[in-house]
């Protein structure tokens, strides 16, 4: 009964008469109390203990778990699509080539195919190494020391594609004792550096690593 009295607009209006005069300054509670819409009484369905912490945490937890699982699923889906763009297993298997260096005698060239491109491997003599190191840097079109081009000076490993227009140079030929491109006459020295002719750059060095007696290109 008492609460009804307090809630009744008549009673409230009576109490807050001076405020009601200036409608703009009324608080929400006051506005609500002025409203003719009445909130029904939920008293009989509301739990006596009004502490909702547990149920609120539970609700957030459930919604958060669903978000977590969904985002994990979305992430895997995206990853699957992205990984489908990477090289397949058969391509990766071809991506590296293993060459047994023990079979290459001193002072000989070997050409192996790597990803469809020729790779020159030369077992250089000490004389050739010395020759490659003695070149005057200023005379080079694309200056690069021999040490920059080899991991082990005994073995020169490079892509056999002329940097001019992509022909395959001939070994042990040309004016500088290295390679000679028959297409447009580019001369490379014993370190694969361009010395004469139209090619702009030295022969490219692929990634490779030594593994005992073997070299793995790729």
């Amino acid at each position: 009964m008492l609460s009804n009295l307090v809630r009744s607009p008549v009673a409230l209006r009576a109490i807050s008469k001076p405020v009601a005069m200036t409608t703009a300054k009324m608080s929400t509670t006051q506005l609500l109390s002025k409203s003719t819409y009445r909130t029904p009484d939920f008293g009989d369905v509301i739990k006596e203990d009004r502490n909702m912490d547990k149920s609120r945490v539970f609700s957030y937890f459930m919604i958060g778990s669903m978000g977590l699982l969904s985002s994990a699923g979305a992430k895997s889906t995206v990853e699957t699509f992205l990984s489908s763009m990477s090289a397949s297993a058969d391509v990766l298997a071809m991506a590296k080539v293993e060459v047994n260096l023990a079979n290459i005698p001193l002072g000989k060239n070997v050409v192996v195919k790597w990803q469809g491109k020729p790779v020159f491997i030369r077992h250089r003599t000490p004389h050739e190494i010395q020759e490659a190191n003695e070149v005057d840097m200023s005379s080079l079109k694309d200056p690069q020391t021999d040490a920059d081009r080899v991991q082990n000076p005994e073995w020169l490993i490079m892509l056999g594609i002329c940097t001019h227009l992509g022909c395959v140079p001939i070994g042990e030929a040309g004016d500088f004792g290295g390679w000679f491109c028959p297409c447009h006459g580019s001369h490379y020295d014993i370190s694969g550096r361009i010395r004469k002719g139209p090619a702009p750059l030295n022969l490219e060095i692929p990634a490779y690593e030594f593994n005992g007696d073997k070299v793995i290109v790729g």
Partner: protein
Amino acid sequence: MSFASVYKVLFKRNSIFVGTVFVGAFLFQTTFDSAITKWYENHNKGKLWKDVKARIGAPEEAEDDE
């Protein structure tokens, strides 16, 4: 930790809630995957290649094909 403090720490600010969910997704993926793999390998113990490898006494070596 009471429920009220869990709410205050994790759920009150939406940025923290969403951040927790995304970070949790990353953590969940790795832990879930390793847990499933562990169970699966335990369930199939004796049939897997690593068991066979131990049985034939193969030396440890890189399995990636180069």
